[in-house]
């Protein structure tokens, strides 16, 4: 419980120490509720966090704690009831630029090939077709989908489909990735591989990643910081700085280390899961 609020302090310290470096995402006292039968049901209580450049944050919380509401609020699909969300120091109305967003559902368009799906974002932004195709092909290759560019999603496996979705998210080179349980539907092997690739692509490009997940091991193995949310109305319950080093190439070995299980156990305890 000593960790409560350390997220604030760390964020503030970064802003001061960094000087000219403006963190890509700052969330200040955001709250959000839904109206149900004329009553406002609070979902997000009072939530503040700072995502630094090149940082990976995992957010875990009890089921139904409003993680998805938080993500949708961050990327401008919902507007907060109070508080401020600043992208690169500025408040944005509507969708923030240069943010990649990905869900558990791959949301691939069945009438487009893998390449066509990967190109979607570039096409929408008006990038010339030839350039969009080159960049998308390169991204698919990088994610191990060489030779599958012309396949329709219905002919790809779950893991491959999610890789195409990842390519679609990464191809326009967003500074910040917002991922909502992106690997939850995958089998263990595919999951480890794609987690690995995602982390290395994020770190290579000095991008920042906010990963929402219910998988504590996934949260710990990927993140620099893990934020534990409370039950509704959601607040930050605890923050853990994960000191496992940034270069985590051996995902299986990592999961067997005592430090790793130490973090997992403490976060599990924080989640306060009660069997009923």
């Amino acid at each position, binding site marked *: 419980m000593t960790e409560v609020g350390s997220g604030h302090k760390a964020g503030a310290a970064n802003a001061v120490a960094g000087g000219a470096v403006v963190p890509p995402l700052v969330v200040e006292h955001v709250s959000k509720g839904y109206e149900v039968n004329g009553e406002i049901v609070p979902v997000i209580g009072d939530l503040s966090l700072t995502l630094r450049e090149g940082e990976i944050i995992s957010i875990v919380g009890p089921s139904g704690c409003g993680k998805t509401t938080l993500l949708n609020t961050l990327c401008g699909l919902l507007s907060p009831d109070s508080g401020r969300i600043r992208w690169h120091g500025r408040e944005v109305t509507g969708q923030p630029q240069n943010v990649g967003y990905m869900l558990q559902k791959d949301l691939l368009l069945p009438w487009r090939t893998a390449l066509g799906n990967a190109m979607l974002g570039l096409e*929408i932004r008006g990038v010339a077709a030839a350039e969009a195709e080159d960049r998308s092909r390169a991204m698919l290759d990088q994610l191990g989908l060489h030779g599958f560019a012309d396949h329709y999603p219905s002919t790809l496996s779950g893991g491959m489909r999610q890789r195409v979705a990842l390519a679609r998210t990464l191809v326009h080179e967003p500074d910040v990735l917002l991922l909502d349980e992106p690997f939850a539907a995958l089998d263990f092997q595919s999951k480890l591989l794609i987690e690995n690739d995602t982390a290395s692509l994020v770190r290579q490009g000095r991008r920042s990643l906010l990963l929402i997940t219910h998988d504590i091991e996934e949260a710990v193995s990927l993140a620099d910081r893990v934020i534990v949310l409370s039950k509704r109305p959601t607040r930050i319950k605890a923050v853990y700085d994960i000191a496992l080093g940034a270069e985590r190439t051996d995902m299986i070995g990592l999961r067997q280390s005592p430090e790793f299980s130490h973090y997992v156990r403490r976060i599990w305890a924080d989640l306060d899961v009660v069997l009923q």
Partner: protein
Amino acid sequence: MARPTGASKPTPDTAARRRRRKRLRATALVLATQVAILIAFLAFWDHMTSRNSAAAFMFGSPSAIGGFLLQMARDGSLWRDLYVTGSETLLGFFVGNLVGTVIGLSLWYSRFVSRVVEPFVIAIGSIPIIALAPIIIIWFGTGLISKVAMSTLSVVIVALVTSYKGALGVDPDQINLMRTLGASKFQIFRKLVVPASLTDIFAGLKLTVGFALIGAIVGEFMSSSEGLGHAIFKAGSLYVIPKVFAALVATIALALILTFIVGKIERLLMPWRRL
């Protein structure tokens, strides 16, 4: 005997061929059963009417119907009627689906407009088109236009409702994704809503082939000098029942051909569905 396992192990190629052959055999069995049912029915019909002239008069007989079909094919009236009814149907089908689909999809654009329009659509959709036929004849005359109008009216509401339903059925997460990619409302419409509605639109197209044909035939019943509906009506009023059936057979054939063409176009336009 030296390597029995190697010899009996099927290569992937022969396995695929065997599967294909199995599928073909299943299809052939379905087809053979259908043909058998048809032949049994026709044989029963022919048998019951061959020795009973009253029954032959009331119900016709397959051989008499075949005879009329041959005669109509020879004197050219069959082709003429097929051509007339076919073009009325196709024009009505085309115009009705175009107008209905364009309106149905554009209703996606504005929740306000769709809510305003909804009761009117339901009201218009509940009018039996046959009841409009006399007015249509008065407005558009007894020629091609009035039949096309009947056919269009039979199609348009169904096309509107199915395409609107398709547009509404688009996954909201999919729309959110487009928004986070920075898509404008028009881009969401063009790149997501329209292609996502194609499945429902084609379901509507298959349904409306029949409606378009019914509209055209009803129009011909009211007032016409040619077409399959005219042939049926004329033969009916002269009590030439086998000829009624002959024209009906031609009508069924027309419906089957048109449905087949729509199915072909569907497969051509939605190649991802074939996989």
